[in-house]
C-alpha cells in the first residue's frame, strides 16, 4: 500500500510539471490556434536562467525572476515572428515555432555547457514524512506550485479585465475588436504567460537532477497531455498532465513485474498508449470542444 501511495505522489509530482507545460501550450493555442513547438526551448531557457540566478539571489527569488525573463522572451518572439504572420496558414506559424525552438536551444546549450547544471533548489532528493508516508520534498513542492499557478490562472481568466479580454479574443476576434479589446495585446500576453509558465516548470524539472542539454525532451510529455485533455481547455491540460504523470509513474513501478514481456523502459511509451486509448473513446479529448457539425 505504501508503495502504491508513494508511486502516486511521484506521479502527481511529475504530472504537475507536465500539467504546467501543457497549460502553457494551451494558452498559446487558445490565442493563436497554433501549437508552439518553441515551448521546450522556453522551458530549457527558464531552467538555465534559474541555474545562473540561484547562486546570487537564491532559488526562491530566481524562479520568479526567470519566469519574468522568459515571459519577456515570449513577448519578443510574439512581436518579432508571430505578429507579422497573422492571417497566414497556422501550419506556417507552427513550422516557425519549430525553427525558434532549435535556435533558442542552440543558444541556451552554450550557457549550459557539457555538464549538468544545478538549479540550486533547497530540496534535492531529501524526503519528508507525511502521514506515515515517506515522500520526496520536491514532489510536494511541484504539486503546491501547480495548485497555486492553476488557481491564479483560473481567477485571472474568470475575474480580471484582461483575462476576460483574452478569452473573448480567442472566441471571436472581430467581436472582441469591436468591444475595444486590442487582440494583438491579448495575443502578446498569452505568449508571455506561456513563457513564464514554461520557465517555472523548467525550474522544477531541474530539481533533484539538475539541467543538461537533453532536459528539453521532458517538455514533449506535455503533447500527449494536451491532446488527452483537449487542445483548447486549461482544465483538460491539468487533468491530462496529471494523468500522464501518474500513468508513467505506475507503469515504471509495476510493469517489470506485471508485464515483463513489454521490455524495459516501457513507461516512456505509456503516455502515448494512454493518448491512443483516450482518443479512441473521445476523439476531441476529455475536455475539448466538440466539433459542432450540422448534418
Amino acid at each position, binding site marked *: 500500500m505504501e508503495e502504491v501511495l508513494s508511486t502516486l505522489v511521484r506521479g502527481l509530482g511529475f504530472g504537475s510539471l507536465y500539467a504546467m507545460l501543457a497549460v502553457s501550450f494551451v494558452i498559446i493555442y487558445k490565442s493563436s490556434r497554433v501549437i508552439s513547438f518553441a515551448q521546450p526551448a522556453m522551458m530549457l531557457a527558464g531552467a538555465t536562467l534559474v541555474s545562473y540566478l540561484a547562486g546570487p539571489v537564491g532559488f526562491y527569488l530566481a524562479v520568479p525572476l526567470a519566469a519574468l525573463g522568459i515571459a519577456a522572451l515570449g513577448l519578443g518572439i510574439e512581436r518579432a515572428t508571430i505578429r507579422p504572420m497573422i492571417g497566414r496558414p497556422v501550419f506556417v506559424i507552427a513550422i516557425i515555432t519549430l525553427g525558434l525552438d532549435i535556435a533558442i536551444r542552440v543558444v541556451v546549450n552554450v550557457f549550459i555547457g557539457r555538464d549538468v547544471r544545478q538549479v540550486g533548489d533547497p530540496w534535492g532528493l531529501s524526503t519528508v514524512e507525511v502521514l506515515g508516508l515517506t515522500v520526496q520534498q520536491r514532489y510536494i513542492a511541484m504539486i503546491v506550485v501547480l495548485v497555486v499557478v492553476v488557481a491564479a490562472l483560473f481567477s485571472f481568466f474568470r475575474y480580471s*479585465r484582461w483575462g476576460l479580454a483574452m478569452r473573448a479574443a480567442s472566441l471571436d476576434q472581430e*467581436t472582441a475588436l*469591436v468591444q*475595444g479589446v486590442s487582440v494583438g495585446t491579448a495575443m502578446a500576453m498569452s505568449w508571455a504567460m506561456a513563457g513564464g509558465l514554461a520557465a517555472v516548470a523548467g525550474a522544477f524539472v531541474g530539481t533533484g537532477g539538475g539541467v543538461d542539454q537533453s532536459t528539453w525532451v521532458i517538455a514533449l510529455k506535455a503533447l500527449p497531455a494536451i491532446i488527452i485533455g483537449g487542445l483548447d481547455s486549461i482544465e483538460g491540460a491539468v487533468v491530462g498532465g496529471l494523468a500522464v504523470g501518474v500513468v508513467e509513474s505506475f507503469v515504471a513501478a509495476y510493469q517489470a513485474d506485471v508485464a515483463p514481456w513489454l521490455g524495459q523502459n516501457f513507461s516512456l511509451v505509456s503516455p502515448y498508449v494512454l493518448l491512443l486509448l483516450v482518443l479512441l473513446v473521445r476523439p476531441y479529448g476529455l475536455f475539448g470542444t466538440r466539433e459542432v457539425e450540422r448534418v
Partner: protein
Amino acid sequence: MLAVSNLEVVYDDVVLVLRGVSLDVPDGQIVGLLGANGAGKTTLLRALSGLLDIHHGEITRGQVSLDGERIDHLGPQQIVDRGISQVLEGRRVFGEFTVEENLRVGAHTKPKDRAANLERVFDLFPRLLERRTQAAGYLSGGEQQMLAMGRALMSNPRYLLLDEPSLGLAPQLVGSIRDLITAINEQGTTVLLVEQNASMALSIADHGYVMETGRVVMDKPAEDLLADDDIREFYLGLGAEGSARSFRDVKHYRRRKRWLS
C-alpha cells in the same frame, strides 16, 4: 458630429464597394441607413469603426471624421475609446460566456464606469438581469440582440452603430427592439441604424439615407422618405395609392390552359 465625406472603399485591392459616400450623423439624432443586400451598408459601418483592416479593406479616398478630427486611420480600440461603439450584424454574443461576462467585456475600455454602466444596461434590459448568470449562447434571438446592444453600451458610447438589429426577429420583438433604440437615444446616445426593415427604421429615425450599389441615392428627413413614392413602393411594399398592390394588376399575361382545352 460623426461625418463621412466622399468615402471610397476597396476590398482586396480590386472590389470597389463604396463610391463616394457622404453621410452626417448629427448629435442626439437617430439616423437610418437603408439599402438592399450588397449596397455597402456594413462596409460603411466598418469604415466608421475601424474594422476594414481585418477584412482586407482600404479607404482609398475621402475621410471619416469625429467633431472635425479625422479618425479613419485609427484602430478599433481607439475608436471605441473615443465613444463610437458598433453592434455587429448577427448579434455575435460570446456564447460560452455568461450574460454578465459578455457585458464586462463590453466595459473593457471603461473599467472605471463598469458598475454604473452595468446598472444602466440592466435598467434598460431587465431581461438580461434575470439571465445574468446564464450562458449567452442559450438566450433567445431577441435576448441576444439586447445583450449585444447592452454590451456596446457598456463602453458608454456617444455614437451607437447598429447593424440590422431586427435581423431574424419576430415582428413583436422587432417592435420592442425599436422601442429600446428610442429609449437609448433619449438617454443621449446618437444612433446610426442600418436596416433592411425600412418601415421600422423610418418610424423612429430623424433622418434617412438610402444606399444602392455603393452610393447614397437618397438623403432626406425620415418623414419625407416615408412619403416618397419610390421608397413606398420599393422599400415599404406599398403601392402609389397607399394600398397594398395586388398581383392581379401586375400580371399582364393570360394563364394558358394546357389540359383538356
